[in-house]
């Protein structure tokens, strides 16, 4: 036993924890639960933990994954429950297992978002959104290589808008690997291309991940 994959939820107030802080928080939780994490060798040893797909601040996830290296055999029975107890509010561990699939095999991410409209009619907003995304939509996005136009619709599948009370629910499968489509790009696309439908608030939640052949990634 060397490598373990942790699957957990990060919701509620915990969605405001940044990627680096989530790493620290995970490390402390693992220490509290007496999981013997392996440390890197060298001058400044650090715990060997990597989060598969960092969560942007403000987004929730029902399916976060982190790989850790351990120094010795770990009893996996009851470990998710123990980890949940050792973590702050908003973290719930769903599973811990060996032999997780290679991160590069991850391709699709299912997300659900809520767009809030305080004054506007959600039915009308739903229509506007449907119409916008019925054709190719470009969005200005910033990457490490600079700013550029990105055709977001080429990397989205199964996009659905459902009107609700003072809100519209958005569901989609987004490419999460080459290229990585951040769900916030959908919100940006509306703001840039149909500002009249730009929501007053809201956020996204990750639901599940899939391989290129649509089988579950785990």
């Amino acid at each position, binding site marked *: 036993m060397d490598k373990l994959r942790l699957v957990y939820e990060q919701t509620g*107030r915990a969605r405001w924890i940044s990627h680096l802080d989530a790493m*620290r928080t995970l490390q402390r939780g693992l220490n509290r639960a007496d999981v013997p994490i392996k440390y890197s060798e060298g001058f400044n040893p650090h715990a060997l933990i990597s989060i598969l797909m960092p969560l942007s601040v*403000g987004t929730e996830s029902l399916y976060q994954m982190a790989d850790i290296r351990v120094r010795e055999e770990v009893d996996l029975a009851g470990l998710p429950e123990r980890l949940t107890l050792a973590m702050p509010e908003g973290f719930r561990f769903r599973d811990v297992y060996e032999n997780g699939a290679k991160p590069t095999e991850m391709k699709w991410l299912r997300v659900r978002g809520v767009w809030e409209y305080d004054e506007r009619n959600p039915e009308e907003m739903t229509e506007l959104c449907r119409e916008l995304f019925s054709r190719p939509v470009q969005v200005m996005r910033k990457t490490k290589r600079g700013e550029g136009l990105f055709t977001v619709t080429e990397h989205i599948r199964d996009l659905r808008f459902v009107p609700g009370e003072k809100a519209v629910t958005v569901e989609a499968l987004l490419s999460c690997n080459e290229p990585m489509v951040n769900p916030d790009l959908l919100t940006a696309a509306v703001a840039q291309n149909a500002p009249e439908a730009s929501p007053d608030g809201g956020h996204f939640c990750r639901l599940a991940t899939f391989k290129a052949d649509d089988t579950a990634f785990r």
Partner: protein
Amino acid sequence: MDKKLERILPRGQKPARYTGGEYGEIRKDLSGVELRMALCFPDVYEIGMSNTGMRILYRVINDMPGVWCERVFAPWFDMAEEMRKNALPLYALESGDPLSEFDAVGFSLGYEMAYTTVLEMLSLAGIPMHSRDRETLTPLVFAGGSVCCNPEPMAEYFDLMVVGEGEDVDREVLELLRSAKREGWTKKEFLSRAAKIGGIYVPSLYKPEYAPDGTLAGMTALDGAPETVTKRIMTDFENSCFPVDAMVPNTEIVHDRVGLELFRGCIRGCRFCQAGHIYRPVRNRSVEKLLQQGKEALSFSGYQEITLLSLSSSDYRGLNELCDGLMEYCEPRGIGLSLPSLRADNFSMDIMQRVQKVRKSGLTFAPEAGTQRLRDVINKNVTEEDLLRSCATAFRGGWNSVKLYFMLGLPTETDEDVLGIAELADRVVHCWRENAVNKARGLRVTVSTSCFVPKPHTPFQWEPQVSREEYLRRVTLLRENMKAKAVTYNWHDPETSFTEAVLSRGDRRIGALLEEIWRRGGYLESWSEGFALSRWTDSADKLGLDLTFYANRTRPLTELLPWDHINMGVKKRHFIREYEQAHRGCLSPDCRAACSACGANAFLPGGKCDG
């Protein structure tokens, strides 16, 4: 979570500071809560969450049945602006409820530059700032912390102030407030009773009078309030609260580690040091207790680092034994032990080797002054020989970076003393050449100077601060004479030191100045982003206040001082004696070598300190 807050959060930096929900956070069912307390820290989350006093009081108050204590920190500028724009009042992290709904709003005040932040926090909460404008019993707005040893500058804002250590007094105040609420007392009735609790200062019950020359002429206690308010301390420090289950933040804070409190007070009598005087007498915790607390805190928190807290950790008698015990636990778990505040005189190879086994941290010494003459004046019992011997040991042990801290503008300082700093730095470089085991890695000596701020309740409380121009002249003199390439020189700007000098020895008239500075935007003034000297000078001009009267004036020993009615345990007689010793250039022995009869031992049963 409040919808307004959810929408604001993504717009500010580090939103995790504003959400609560940390591991170890205490939440209570409101149906069983009779009294709600907001424990406020007038600085940002990262600073406030690092404060040991906050951790202790959070636990102590939450241990009271029927009382729920929550935390409140100052929002950073971006967040404060958004909160105002969106009419979101300042709230407590645990419940998200606005401060105005609490029964007690208590501020932990550790430094003077936080005063205007208190005003802004009250304003953000929609609570009237002045005590006189809050007519109802609740919210009761009060403060505690080291700066309350001169309560006058903030006197008109707080209903009461806690003098000394808060563990017992806070509980007593809250119990009284609980009775007052149950029985429907007026605020006046409550305050008049609270003033009878030891360690409680009710500013509205004291009336200052001023002489034509602007000095204090008298301070009259009203309505049966005691003439002198004497601080309270935890006499049984061994068994006083240390929260091993303290909360662990979700975001990085300044002191992100377990801090083990070895002792309170200090055996040294450095004449500039306020903490060394106001926390007397010395009270130790046993090695056994500390080991137990350290292990429990590490295991609860999951932290990978532990440090030792005290005013002078190398004076802890059981330090070797403690370090060994901690290392035994830490080493196999990859936990680092770091030692702060080492004195150069008894720094041993032994301890250094123990500490560096896991992780190596920097080496810091504070000789404070450049020549032996001046070190004797300030009673810093460290010789150059001590310092160089410690450095030699460190260099032989493989260390290659040393930080040296000094003050400029100490009483009696001459240019010779200033140049002594450069010479001392050169000798450290020379010592490295002679002792370093691995010269290829080079040496880094960092010399830092700050401007001396005279503080109340110290032998230097009558001393003037040098002017900003004079401080900068000495900085230039030193900079021009700091020749070695391995030495980096940093100096602290004199502007905040000047304002700190005004506040630390200010009287009640400073209150209006603070309000004016706040109106002009003074907030989080210990951060460069929040501080502007022009705000201070413009405000002082408007109010006709002379700031140099407070900062740069030599006070005669006979002058009535604004904090003379506050007894922090050390007698004025002792300060006068030490002041005279300083001007004669004479050292005084530390408390272990000979008791100087400062008076602080009277606080302990049997009158024996350092037990």
